[in-house]
């Protein structure tokens, strides 16, 4: 069974600084997808960034980028120039492809301080 592990229950970053959230996963599949979702206090799940396992290039979306290490089964999220609005729970997630279930990690609560 696939598992997703987030070892940092909480992280804190100062506004305008950079923070990295860690995620590791376990799978026997060769093709799969990895995601980072943001859950603000409103509780809605918002997709931040996705990575296809067959792509070697790390995904980037504006201030958000990932470090995908397929051999190590590691998928970290880097947030640059952190903003107060980035404060939220961040969940790492995995699935095998279109229409398959998402398996989530336990989440990392990110605080952004002035």
């Amino acid at each position, binding site marked *: 069974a696939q598992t997703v592990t987030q070892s940092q229950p909480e992280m804190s970053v100062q506004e305008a600084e950079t923070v990295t959230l860690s995620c590791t996963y376990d799978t026997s599949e060769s093709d799969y997808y990895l995601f980072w*979702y943001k859950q603000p206090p409103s509780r*809605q*799940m918002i*997709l931040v960034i*996705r990575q296809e396992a067959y792509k070697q290039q790390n995904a980037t979306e504006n201030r958000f980028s990932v470090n995908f290490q397929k051999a190590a089964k590691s998928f970290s999220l880097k947030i640059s120039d952190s903003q107060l609005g980035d404060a939220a729970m961040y969940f790492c*997630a995995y699935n095998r492809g279109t229409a398959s279930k*998402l398996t*989530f990690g336990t989440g990392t609560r990110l605080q952004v301080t002035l």
Partner: protein
Amino acid sequence: EPEVTQTPSHQVTQMGQEVILRCVPISNHLYFYWYRQILGQKVEFLVSFYNNEISEKSEIFDDQFSVERPDGSNFTLKIRSTKLEDSAMYFCASSVAGASYNEQFFGPGTRLTVL
């Protein structure tokens, strides 16, 4: 921008009662999902649905749960006889068929409180 909607936003019920949680997926999406999140815990998969059939379900999705797409727009989750441990946030999600990017779009959730 199209979005997934869910009603009600908060449902309070007595233990043993039936509840129906409603979702309207994005109109051109064909895959539908329910997830739940017990307060302070991770998001867990319940069930996926495609072509009017359950595609996959988790161990949580026992005989007390059912899903239905009663018309062309709604997607419902029914819990027949609620238990205290069913108290959670329930998220509906949908995705478009054949998309290489494979994104599931989530609704805002329904908070279910079982007393």
